[in-house]
C-alpha cells in the first residue's frame, strides 16, 4: 500500500483528489468506481499452459521463465468455505468473515473473502462475482480497496 503525503491531499477540501488505492499492487484491474467489478490479474505459462492467480518469475509447474500476464473474468463458483470467528491480530477484516475458495470460470482457484451474504447462507457450488470493498484508508484519506466476491444471483439472497 502506498500513501501519498502531499499537502493538497491532506488539506480539507481536497476530497475530489481522493482515489481508490489497491491493498496490494498487481492483484486486480482497478475498476473506475467502487461499484465496478475488479478483474483478477494472473499469469499463464506459454510453455506448459498452466495458469496462476498470483505473480511469479518462474512457472511453479514447469520451472520455465515463460509467464505472460493475463486478466481473468469476474465470475466463479465456491468450492469450499469457512467462517472465521476468531479475530486474527493484524487483520484489517473483522471476524466473523467468510473465507471461500473460488474456482474462476477460467479454472484457476483463488482464496477470497465473501461480501454481501450472511455466513449461514453460503453454499458450496454457489455462483459468485467479484466486487470491490474498502478495507482501510491510507494517510491521505484515500480508500484502500481489495477484490472480494459476492453472490452472483441476487434472487437467492432475497429468498434466504
Amino acid at each position, binding site marked *: 500500500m502506498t500513501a501519498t503525503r502531499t499537502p493538497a491531499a491532506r488539506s480539507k477540501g481536497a476530497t475530489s483528489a481522493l482515489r481508490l488505492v489497491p491493498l496490494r499492487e498487481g492483484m486486480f484491474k482497478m475498476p473506475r468506481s467502487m461499484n465496478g467489478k475488479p478483474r483478477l490479474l494472473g499469469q499463464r505459462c506459454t510453455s506448459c499452459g498452466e495458469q496462476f*492467480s498470483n505473480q511469479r518469475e518462474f512457472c511453479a*509447474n514447469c520451472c520455465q521463465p515463460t509467464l505472460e500476464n493475463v486478466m481473468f473474468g469476474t465470475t466463479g463458483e465456491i468450492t469450499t468455505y*469457512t467462517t472465521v470467528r476468531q479475530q486474527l491480530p493484524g487483520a*484489517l477484516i473483522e471476524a466473523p468473515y467468510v473465507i471461500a475458495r473460488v*474456482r474462476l470460470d477460467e479454472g484457476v482457484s*483463488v*482464496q477470497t473473502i465473501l461480501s454481501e451474504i450472511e455466513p449461514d447462507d453460503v453454499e458450496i457450488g454457489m455462483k459468485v462475482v467479484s466486487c470491490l470493498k474498502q478495507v482501510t484508508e491510507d494517510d491521505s484519506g484515500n480508500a484502500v480497496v481489495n477484490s472480494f466476491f459476492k453472490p452472483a444471483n441476487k434472487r437467492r439472497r432475497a429468498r434466504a
Partner: protein
Amino acid sequence: MRDVVILGCGLHRFGRWPDKSVQDMGREAIAGALNDSGVPFQDIQVAYTGRVLSGMGAGLNVVNELGQTGIPVVNIEQACASSSTALREARIAVGAGVYDVALVVGFEKMQRGLLQISETTSYGTQMGFSVMPASYALNERRYIEDYGATEEMFAQVSVKAHRNGALNPYAQYQQEVTLEEVMASRYIAEPVKLLECSPTTDGASAVVIVAKEVADRYQPASRQVNIAGWAAGSGAYTPTGSDAGDGGEEGGDELNRGALEQLADTAYERAGVGPEDVDVTQVHDAFSPGEIFSIESLGIARPGEGAAAVWEGRTEVNGDIPVNTDGGLLSRGHPIGATGGAMVTEIYRQLTGDGGARQVGNDPKVGLIHNAGIGGMNVLVLTR
C-alpha cells in the same frame, strides 16, 4: 547406508511453564533420554535441535546444559516439523557413517492465541487469510460435501485424543472430554471448533540414536528401535484441475495430501513394509481434520473412509489402527519445535512395550509417524 536405531527418549511434560526456560525444559528431556538410552553425554558426537521461536543459536544453549563438549550443534527450523526433520538429518548423518552417536532435541515456549504464521504487515494477515485452522476447515467442509461425513465424526478425533491424553503423564491436558463438550465449544473457523484445535504449549523432547553396529554396547536388542524408513518433502505444485487439489497458492498449507501419499510410499519402500503392516501410528492432528486426512494419505484408511474409521473406534488404543495413543497434538500439546520428538518418543514406548495404560496390544512391531509443518513434512517408519 548403515542401519540406525533409537536407544532412548525423554520428555519434559508438555504444558504451560511460564517460570521455566527452554534450557530448563531441554535439560530435563535430554537427561531423560540419556538415562533411558544408557548413553553418557560424553559419547554424544553431534546434536540436531529443532525449534522455531527461541532465537539465534538457541540449540547450543540447551545442549550445553549437559556439559560443554564442543560437539557440532545444528539448529533446525521447519515450523511444526522441526524436530522430526532434526531426527531425519541425524539419521542420515549416522547412517552415512559420519557419526556413531547423535542426540536429537526439540524445545519450544509459545504465546497463547492463534499462531502468527506470517508477518503482521503481510497481505495474508491483513486480509485475515493466515489463520491456520481455516485451511483445515476449508478442507473439512469439502470432505463433508464429498463423502457425506459429519461434524461429529471430526469432533470424535478430539474425544479420542483426550481419552488417550488422560492416560499420558506427559500430556498437557490429562482430562477426558465428551462429544457433547467438543460439539458445544465455540467455532474458531467453522466447522473447526475450539476443542478441535491443538493448544499452544511449552515443552521439550529428546531422542538418542546410534549406529546399529554400536548399539549393543548400550542396550539389548529389545530396547533398540530401527529408523527403517523416512521420507521428507515440501509438496510439488499440483496443476489446476488435478485430482490432488488446488495447489494452495495462498499462504502456507500443510495439508498437501497428494504429497503426503508420495512420501508415505517412499518411507514404506525404504522400510520394506506396507500400510497393512503398521501397528501404531502418530499423525499431525494440529486440528481434528488432520487425523482423518492423514490416515487416508498414509494408506491406513481408504480415501473417504477416514472419518468413519474414527467414528467406529478403529483409531482408538484398542482399535485395529491405533492413532495418537499419547493424546496427539490435541491433548498431549503442540510445542511446535518439540512435537516431532514427542511423536518418536510415543512410538518408541509402544514398540518397546512401555506404553503403560495406553499400550496397544498384539506386540506391535511397526510404527508410523507423520509430522507436518509449513515448509515441509516428514514420514518415519520405526520397526523392532
